[in-house]
């Protein structure tokens, strides 16, 4: 069902993604928010309300981190809502902004996503240990990589996917990332399949060059109502559909080979956007790719490939940026090729679709005509899917 109050994207902005930023969380938020306002040719006085997004507070090392960086996000004196769904938060931020404007109660909303992972010592990965169940899992001496390695093994075993296919995804995204101005130093590049397959085994089957890095960075997006857009005579990109869905927290009770929560989230968004045949109607996609296998896993959940078929399509170049017959996937370079400041990385994915539809993606511009695109993120205990569909 199409929704009644349409919501437009008027601008987006990103900082560079960095292993370690000089800037504080407030400063990163300010830089991204300012960039989005400049992109939209608006000022903070045009902003009716603000959404602040950050994944676990443990990274930035501030309890209620989004309260702390509120002034950097431009939220002082304004309605300011903060939401999170773990790794899905960056894309969810745009959904959160969408419902502010779609309610009819606000004309504009500035969504700011910030993450400064390098603050956490000895290593940000430690902050993730507390995502496990405190009674039955944490006492085992857990490690974040475990759950992803367990899921990847289940997925590759179910469909007989060779490691080389995952290496091809990593290679594609690292190549695409070379053209992204936010790309973190050392992350993108022309890596050979052999180099990727020979990289350090972290938690088999997960290998170093098939994983996104730890990053600092921020991103922001400016959303507006149809009335606001009409008054200014603009021809913007519209949010056509949104979807999100959370599966059970008893993750050891699910079959990890397929992300059913993402199927539900995607169907919710397709329904709202009036998309009945996504493989024809979605022209460019940014699936969440913190690990190479996740891109394929998610493309299946998004119904853009049958179960087990996303890897087969890799070999045919179906997901390549310059494809004419396929669906370009992760033209930005994604988390593997640009970096992964968690909430900001999700925002980067939505921004990429926005710039692709506006024809402003520069060297990253896909070759096929793109009038509708989809950005997606994932998180919590491998259980949440967040989806935004944009159209021009």
């Amino acid at each position, binding site marked *: 069902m199409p929704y009644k109050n349409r919501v437009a994207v008027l601008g987006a902005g990103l900082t560079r993604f960095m292993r370690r930023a000089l800037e504080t969380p407030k400063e990163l938020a300010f830089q991204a928010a300012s960039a989005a306002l400049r992109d939209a040719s608006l000022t903070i006085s045009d902003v009716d309300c603000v959404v602040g997004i950050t994944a676990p507070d443990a990274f930035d090392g501030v309890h209620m981190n989004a309260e702390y960086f509120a002034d950097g996000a431009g939220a002082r004196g304004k309605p300011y809502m903060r939401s999170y769904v773990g790794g899905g938060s960056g894309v969810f931020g745009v959904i959160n902004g969408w419902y502010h404007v779609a309610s009819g109660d606000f004309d504009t909303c500035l969504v700011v996503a910030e993450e400064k992972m390098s603050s956490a010592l000895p290593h940000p990965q430690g902050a993730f240990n507390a995502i496990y169940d405190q009674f039955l899992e944490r006492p085992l001496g857990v490690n974040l990589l475990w759950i992803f390695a367990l899921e990847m093994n289940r997925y590759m075993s179910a469909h007989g996917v060779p490691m080389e296919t995952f290496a091809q995804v990593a290679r594609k995204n690292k190549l695409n990332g070379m053209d992204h101005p936010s790309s973190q130093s050392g992350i993108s590049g022309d890596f050979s399949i052999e180099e990727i397959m020979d990289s350090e*085994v972290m938690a088999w089957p997960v290998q170093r060059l098939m994983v996104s890095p730890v990053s600092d960075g921020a991103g922001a997006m400016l959303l507006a109502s149809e009335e606001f857009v009409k008054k200014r005579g603009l021809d913007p990109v519209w949010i056509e559909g949104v979807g999100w869905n959370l599966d059970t927290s008893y993750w050891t009770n699910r079959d*990890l080979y397929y992300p059913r929560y993402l199927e539900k989230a995607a169907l919710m968004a397709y329904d709202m956007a009036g998309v009945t045949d996504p493989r024809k109607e979605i022209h460019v996609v940014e699936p969440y790719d913190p690990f190479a296998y996740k891109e394929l896993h998610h493309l299946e959940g998004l119904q853009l490939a049958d179960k087990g078929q996303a890897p087969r399509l890799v070999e045919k170049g179906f997901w390549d940026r310059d494809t004419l017959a396929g669906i370009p996937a992760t033209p930005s370079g994604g988390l593997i090729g640009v970096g992964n400041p968690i909430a900001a990385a999700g925002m980067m994915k939505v921004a990429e679709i926005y710039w692709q539809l506006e024809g402003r993606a520069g060297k990253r511009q896909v070759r096929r005509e793109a009038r509708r695109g989809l950005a997606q993120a994932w998180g919590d205990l491998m259980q949440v899917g967040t989806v935004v569909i944009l159209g021009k």
Partner: protein
Amino acid sequence: MRPLAGTSLSDQALTQGEALTTSWRVKAEYAWDTGAAVGKFLAGLKEGKVLGVQCSGCERTLIPPRAFCELCFAPIDRWVELSGTGVINTFSVSFVNWDATRRDTPEIPAVIEIDGASPGLGILHVLGEVGEDLPTVLSKVAIGKRVQAVWKPQSEREGAITDIRYFKLVG
């Protein structure tokens, strides 16, 4: 195009004091109430028993135990004793610690579907006695293989998931 904002620091900038930091160790400590269901499960482990619950609505036998069925949204009070054996649903061979430092010998986390529970319902634990290097582990361990719990001696059990030391391959 205007260059993007953001100043990338080198490790050197921090170690040589070119960029200043303030540090803080948060005293974030908790004593979580286990409640009825998890509490009873942990008490069972202390006795060397793996307990599950049954939902009278969907007829599933569930592990880990819970006070309510999340699908039927109804309370559960029927407890059953399951076995300490099961099947490997998936596994990993992990060479990194939680702080990203490297380990010489791997940890082998696995989801284990416990015998007696409904199909596909497992718990997280670790495997032991399956080798200490990747080729050996991969030659021994596979999805679908049967495993059994190796318990701590009764005197050392404390009502924790670690009362099971690890699971090992059967036979």
